[in-house]
């Protein structure tokens, strides 16, 4: 009897361990994959990281974060691609991933930042015909992202970045970007991600750009 109950307890704990372990496994795998983002150098290795996130997304159909990170990777890859046609294909994929994430997690500030970012990445393909269309669409997404979470530093980081790279005659420039980036830096200081796998990126780049603004 004792033996039986022991076996029973053992199997039960094993089951519980695997059940709890599932979530642990998810978080653990996410953590290690997110950490890989810092070591990525080539489009190929970024692709490998993106593929990992996609595999996780595939297994964890209810989680928006793997989709979010996979889309993030795709956007990064699009900037490394020089062929315009392929760039668009990659951004189509990023859009599909982000749309799926948006279905799972409505009105999410971080997801809307990626949505806005995809629009600005698309402008690069054909600035003449796309600038006027996608520019405002991109900023509309950042406005939404701000509405959903005022404390999100990545809203100001993205806005500051686009001002940083816009020529002064177009209403951009370093002097315009600086105060926005400083707001971003301030928000980064106080920003606490909801968990170890929620987005935290952008602080280092913000500080780098602030330094560049102050150089002159």
């Amino acid at each position, binding site marked *: 009897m004792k033996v039986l109950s022991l076996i029973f307890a053992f199997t039960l704990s094993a089951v519980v361990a695997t059940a709890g372990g599932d979530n642990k496994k998810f978080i653990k795998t996410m953590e290690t994959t997110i950490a890989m983002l810092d070591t990525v150098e080539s489009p190929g290795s970024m692709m490998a990281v993106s593929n990992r996130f996609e595999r996780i997304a595939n297994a964890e159909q209810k989680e928006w974060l793997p989709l979010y990170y996979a889309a993030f990777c795709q956007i990064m890859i699009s900037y490394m691609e020089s062929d315009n*046609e392929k760039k668009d294909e990659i951004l189509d994929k990023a859009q599909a991933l982000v749309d799926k994430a948006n279905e799972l997690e409505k009105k999410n500030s971080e997801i809307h930042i990626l949505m806005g970012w995809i629009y600005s990445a698309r402008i690069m393909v054909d600035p*003449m015909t796309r600038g006027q269309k996608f520019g*405002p669409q991109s900023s509309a997404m950042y406005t939404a992202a701000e509405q959903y979470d005022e404390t999100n530093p990545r809203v100001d980081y993205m806005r500051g970045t686009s001002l940083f790279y816009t020529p002064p005659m177009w209403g951009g420039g370093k002097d315009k970007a600086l105060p926005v980036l400083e707001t971003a830096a301030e928000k980064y200081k106080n920003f606490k991600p909801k968990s170890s796998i929620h987005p935290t990126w952008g602080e280092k780049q913000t500080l780098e750009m602030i330094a560049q603004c102050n150089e002159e």
Partner: protein
Amino acid sequence: MKHLIGLIVACLILSSAWAQTKISGKLTDDKGAAVPFANVFIKDSYDGASTAEDGSFSFDTFEEGDAILAVSVIGYESFEQAVKLEGKPLAINPQLKAQVKELDMVVISAGAFEASDEKKAVVLKPLDIVTTAGAAGDIFGAIQTLPGTAQIGEQEGLFVRGGSAAETKTIIDEMVVQNPFFSSVPDVPQRGRFSPFLFKGTVFSTGGYSALYGQALSSALVLNSADLADNTQTGIGLTMVGPFLSHTQRWENTSVSVSANYSNLEPFFKINKQLADWQEVPESAGGEVVFRQKTSKTGIFKLYGTYSGNRLALNTPNIENPDMPNSFALENTNIYLNSSYKEWLNENWSVFVGTSYSKDLDDIEETTFNLESDEELTQGKLILNRQLGKFSALKFGGEVHSMTSFGQFDAFANDLEDTYSAGFVEGDIFISSKLATRVGLRVENSELLNQQNIAPRTSLAYKTGENSQMSLAYGHFYQTPENQFLYQLENLDYERADHYIINYQRMNNDRTFRIEFYDKEYSGLVKSVPDSAQWLNNSGEGYARGFDIFWRDKKTIRFVDYWISYSYLDTKRNYRDFPIEAQPTFTSTHTFSLVYKHWISKWRCNAGATYTYASGRPYFNPNRSAEEFHSDVTPDYHNLSLNLAKLTSIKGQFTVLFLSVSNVLGIENTFGYRYSADGSRRQTVGPPNLRTIFFGCFISIGDQ
């Protein structure tokens, strides 16, 4: 006891050791080439790997039993294979099928030039229309730089491959537009009524067009209006001729735009010397409403309405009595409404329903007569589309037009009524990615003529290489005679043209070359037969043959985009009041145009030039015998126009400043001559002004 637990633990360890399966292999495409960076994984698990540069992959999985190995990568069809995971290493070498992209498919393109943002394999972008020098922002002006069109400077319209302006129909959202241009003024060409910004796509067909459209012997200009507006914004335009205001509001699934404009050519005439003798400066006012409602993920309802009124007066020379010029005064009111609804019923079926209404009122006072005309056209159209696989589709449907035309010519009143109906069916069948055919049939009935016609249309396209293709097209095209003849005699039949087209096209990334040979055979044209009891019949005929060449290059010179068009045309007709078969006055044998655009990024400036040349056109000289009809030819036509558009921002708002100079060289082109009745005097028909300067700005205020 301990023994037992140890056994269980050992079993568990053993079983997990047993469950680890190594999967490795090499991923290739259907041509045997390695596919790198693909995602190879066990479905519903975290286990998987990315392929290396050489397509190889290898990973371990702890999953066991029946599982699915999946592969996904951009540009290829996804791949799945059932596997049994039993701890034994698996070697799998998946082969992926390259996805058939729209870009790689053969395109049914004979006769057509397409401008679109959405499709990739197109000759023009909508923005190209706006930035073409000499086009002055007019859709029709830009289309005139494409091969197949004649340079006609004394009247509006698209004269395509030996066809008259009446042989080209403008179609907005599947429905024919009755009055696409402002009302005609003697020897002063008029602009189109529609702004190029309304449309997301344009197909200009110089022949062999789809069975979905009819009533055009030569050409169809198919304009597809834009969907939901992208953003909420306010636009302010300020040009030499007046202001333009618009506001667009965008909600999630709805957008509404309202705009108003007023124009008065007084300042324009002050700066640009007029050869025409204006008595009342042209003045116009109008408004526009554009409503869009997304009814579902795939459905959209569109409503477009525009109203405009304009008036002007000028004196035209009187050849019979030079001291007493003719006067011409015009007042016009035009209303146009167009609504449509398009929806996918399921994966395979889509439906389009459209209605349109237009009313055009002209009040013309000339020296010797008054003319009041009132034209109305109501249309309904239904198109059902059945998708056959990814690319092939079958379309069918019908349309009904109810037209009334009333003309009061002094004491004489004329009126015409016609109910025209048509049914059509057309299949776009892709036999492979290289070979496609379009087969269509159109059946028409006109109550006024009391005649029916059956018009078959077909084309075939074959991809000869990665970037090149050949196309053939053939079809019958019918058109109801123009109202001016029907007023005289209703007992007429359709005019007809048969098109034969062969086309070769090479297109890669930023270079396009096209050559197209055509033969158009006219029959049943309205012909005057003064000696018979019936003074008109359908015995006229003719032909138009030639070839068009188009070359566009955006690549060779950095920041430069240019295109060259050349058309050769051999055409003769014996119709209307022609005594013999002769070349019509609206045709040139050689037409050439060069459009050049230069993007100067330093100044955010787009500079452009357009040069057009056309060889002389025949004209009627009453001093010639009937055998020598149209044997005289005008001097050649030359025109050079420049434009400059600067993109900038005023108080952070997107602003375009533009300046254009038409006919920079101030050449006084001759379009023809008008003779006195006795043939003793003649006058030149020329442009209403020579060099003209036009400038303005457009500011768009959006939420930034």
